[in-house]
């Protein structure tokens, strides 16, 4: 499915780096973390200037100075040797930070090299390296570090090396998986196709894309190194000549700070550790949010309330067949980040019993948004801004969530594009079909439900033995059939098919389309078929709604659309669409690209690309005009002529 991206802005180009900084500034957690780190680093660097006393000297200290509570002389009291806690704290920051950073540096370099080599070269080398990494990962860190340090000299250098040499496993895993991911991306294949060698590819393509995640992991490694160092010192394995925060706690705890009630000697050093690690954690978490963003919302977040408006009667009756679904003046907005994107504007249509309506449009035209709105499945940022959706006596646009849940599937159901994850991968297909039946027809005996599931599978041509299989065991075509079976499970009146065959091969598509057509006739369904394929629409649909930029371009019977199109977009689209019955027809294209939703033009949304546009098109949005036979066109040209 093609998706158009940003409009060309004739201004300063934004490199990934400046874009990143802009994003980072908005991330509160990351900024707070960074500030916390900068502060403590400054403290460490300027320790001599900031510390009121020199913790090295014992001049003038007597036994009366031990464990003195905070006072104006000693803001945080004194420790077990009578020394100023604050000064020890300030100088202690140096030790903790140095050990943390240098140990982490060793880990990151080792892990990074192993990860890239394993990920890029693959094969036996990768196998060996990763087996080794996994083995080291399983062996518990701290006990091993404790053992090694206990057996060797507890010097600062030693500690740095041991922590560093044992802390690379997470880095190796992260770097390897990211290298693998990047290696399989098309631009790396392209680089190889050009003739680039290993060194060039790693330097120019792999490294720049692995770096961001490596940085996030590095921050984690640093915080773990600092925690490890403080733990080691607390356990008595620290360098006795370098007083880190952990060492301070070791002394305090082991020399009666608790019984002396000297909380300052216990709280202050620990607070330092927490400050640094928390700063790193916040920074890392913030960075991860930016570099590996999760989607802004999930499907269970509450939606926005519909704005109630009066519906205007736009069109006359097209036929005497009863109308199942009557959509009037529907407008849908996306609200977020202080902006409002008017995704769908003033769309109306009627779906009659037994009718197959084709909804045609390209990327960004709003067709999926429109369908989601019908079933009130818009994402958290979506909102029905005006209009009504009349179905079975209710206005679906204003129903409450629990009322809508009753109508979903039983009244209107939907067939999604059969992506691998449209069905829950850890539940059997039969189970998921049965679930729909049990929800809307509760209390049916198990045997009856089972029989119904088998009946449905048979209807769509899936053998009964597949009922208890999982989605990943189905082929693409089979999954789509299963989705159809599930959609029909509660005998809906209306079925929405959202690009059901777009990802399928031509022959499978033909099978599925034939199936849908048969089912429609057999069960008397009304179907809204969403697609960008004009060929499919011509073969199957009774009527067609052509959308562009969120608006109705043209809405008419299939015959009128293909043989007497009145909207320039429809006309141009038909010229751009290949026709196998006339294989030598030279295809045309429409220059430009669809409008960005948050930068919509005032006038007709198609005007920038329209070959027949004139001044009025740019300033004024065209109204929907009705020609005879219920043929609706959203274009100024029609008005001029009639």
């Amino acid at each position: 499915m093609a998706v158009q991206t940003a409009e060309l802005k004739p201004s300063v180009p934004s490199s990934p780096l400046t874009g990143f900084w802009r994003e980072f500034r908005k991330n509160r957690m990351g900024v707070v973390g960074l500030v916390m780190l900068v502060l403590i680093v400054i403290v460490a660097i300027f320790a001599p200037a900031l510390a009121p006393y020199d913790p090295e000297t014992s001049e003038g200290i007597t036994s009366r100075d031990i464990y003195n509570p905070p006072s104006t002389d000693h803001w945080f009291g004194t420790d077990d040797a009578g020394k100023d806690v604050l000064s020890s704290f300030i100088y202690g920051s140096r030790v903790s930070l140095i050990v943390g950073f240098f140990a982490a540096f060793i880990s990151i370099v080792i892990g990074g090299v192993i990860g890239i080599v394993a990920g890029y070269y693959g094969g036996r080398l990768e196998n060996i390296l990763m087996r080794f990494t996994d083995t080291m990962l399983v062996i518990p860190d701290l006990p091993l570090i404790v053992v090694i340090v206990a057996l060797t000299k507890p010097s600062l250098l030693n500690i740095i090396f041991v922590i560093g040499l044992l802390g690379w496993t997470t880095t190796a895993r992260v770097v390897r998986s990211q290298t693998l991911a990047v290696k399989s991306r098309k631009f790396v294949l392209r680089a190889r196709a050009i003739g680039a060698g290993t060194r060039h590819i790693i330097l120019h393509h792999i490294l720049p894309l692995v770096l961001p995640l490596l940085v996030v992991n590095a921050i984690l490694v640093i915080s773990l190194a600092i925690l490890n160092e403080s733990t080691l010192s607390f356990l008595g394995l620290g360098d006795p000549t370098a007083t880190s925060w952990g060492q301070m706690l070791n002394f305090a705890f082991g020399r009666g700070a608790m019984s002396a009630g000297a909380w300052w000697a216990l709280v202050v050093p620990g607070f330092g550790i927490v400050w640094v690690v928390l700063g790193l954690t916040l920074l890392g978490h913030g960075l991860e949010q930016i570099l590996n963003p999760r989607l802004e919302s999930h499907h269970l977040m509450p939606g926005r309330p519909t704005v109630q408006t009066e519906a205007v009667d736009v069109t006359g009756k097209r036929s005497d067949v009863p109308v199942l679904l009557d959509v009037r003046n529907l407008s849908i907005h996306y609200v977020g980040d202080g902006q409002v994107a008017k995704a769908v504007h003033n769309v109306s249509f009627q779906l009659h019993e037994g009718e197959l309506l084709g909804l045609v449009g390209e990327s960004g035209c709003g067709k999926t948004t429109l369908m989601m709105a019908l079933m009130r499945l818009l994402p958290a940022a979506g909102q029905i801004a005006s209009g009504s959706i009349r179905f079975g006596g209710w206005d679906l646009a204003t129903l409450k969530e629990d009322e809508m849940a009753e109508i979903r599937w039983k009244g209107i159901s939907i067939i999604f594009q059969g992506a691998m994850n449209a069905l829950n991968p850890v539940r059997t297909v039969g189970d998921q079909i049965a679930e729909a039946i049990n929800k809307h027809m509760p209390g049916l005996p198990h045997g009856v439900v089972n029989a119904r599931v088998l009946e449905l599978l048979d209807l769509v041509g899936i053998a009964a033995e597949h009922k208890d299989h999982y989605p990943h065991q189905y082929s693409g075509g089979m999954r789509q059939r299963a989705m159809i079976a599930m959609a029909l499970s509660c005998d809906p009146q209306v079925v929405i098919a959202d690009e059901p065959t777009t990802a399928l091969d031509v022959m499978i598509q033909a099978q599925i389309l034939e199936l849908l057509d048969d089912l429609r006739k057999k069960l008397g369904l009304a179907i809204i078929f969403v697609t960008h394929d004009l060929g499919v629409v011509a073969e199957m649909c009774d009527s067609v709604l052509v959308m562009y930029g969120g608006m109705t371009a043209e809405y008419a019977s299939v015959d009128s659309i293909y043989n007497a199109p009145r909207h320039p977009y429809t006309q141009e689209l038909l010229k751009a669409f290949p026709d196998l019955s006339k294989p030598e027809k030279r295809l045309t294209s429409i220059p430009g690209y669809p409008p960005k939703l948050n930068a919509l033009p005032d006038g007709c949304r198609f005007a920038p690309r329209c070959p027949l546009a004139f001044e009025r098109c740019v300033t004024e949005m065209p109204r929907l005009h009705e020609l005879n036979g219920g043929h609706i066109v959203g274009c100024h040209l029609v008005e001029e002529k009639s």
Partner: protein
Amino acid sequence: MSDEFILEVKNLKKYFLAGRPALFSRTEQYVHAVDDVDLQLRRGEVIALVGESGCGKSTLALTLMGLENATEGSIFFEGRDITHLTDRERKSTRQRIQMVFQDPYESLNPTQTIEEIVTEPLVVHGLAGDHGERQAHVVRALEDAGLKPAEEYMHRFPHQLSGGQRQRVVIASALVLEPHLLLADEPVSMLDVSIRAEIINLLADLRESRGISVIFITHDLGTVGYFADRVAVMYLGRIVEIGSMREVLTDPKHPYAQALLSVIPVPNPRLRRKRMILQGETPNPIELPVGCRFHPRCPVAMNICKESDPRLLPISETHRAACLLLAK
């Protein structure tokens, strides 16, 4: 090898091991991705390689490019055997054969500017001495690919361009080396319908102006109509029909090609055609059917089709199909 052919492929096979190599397995299974393909291409000729997913068309392209190693058979490019070259030996050939990929959103490194992307091939091959000369080549390539004025695009990043524009950048980076052969693997499948023709027309123009030969791979037969000189239909790793565009698209002889053409939807509601919808799915290329590989799904299969695997049989001077019906 004759001079009139820029590319000659003989009995090309590319098999992949199915699954990971097991420590204790009796027989190893292979995916027969490309299974005995013959192909000849003239200078300035455009051939469309058509088929559904799994037919081997993309693997064929990768093997021709040297991005996969051929299992068997030979590939001759401009008279030279390029089947089993090392990466170093292949480097000079890579200048002459370039590839355009399907996904314009993934084909470009998001951390590189357009200028860097189009300059990269020159840098890799050590061409065009100094910075100024290189830039001149880049500008020319961008403008030939339809991005005018080039200066407006040079400093941008891929995420700032539309899908069609990105695809043009990919083509520009292929053009900058002045290739003789272009392998276009589904270059427009991920673009909006209304802008596909742009890219196809661009490729057609490049064939006119630069005499580049093109192998155009697609599953969408409709887009090849006015652009391709010849069309080859692939099924399960083999070419099952090949001929001029008119011959194959208006008078296909292989049942698979006939079925395929009959089911592709046509944007004309008044045209009611007889559609040959094949049942089932394409069998997996690990366990190929015995005899003609299409016979399990063929609506007109005969008994002999279960035993005999047909080669491409002549229908006319230029038109051939691998079907035993023709042997009658």
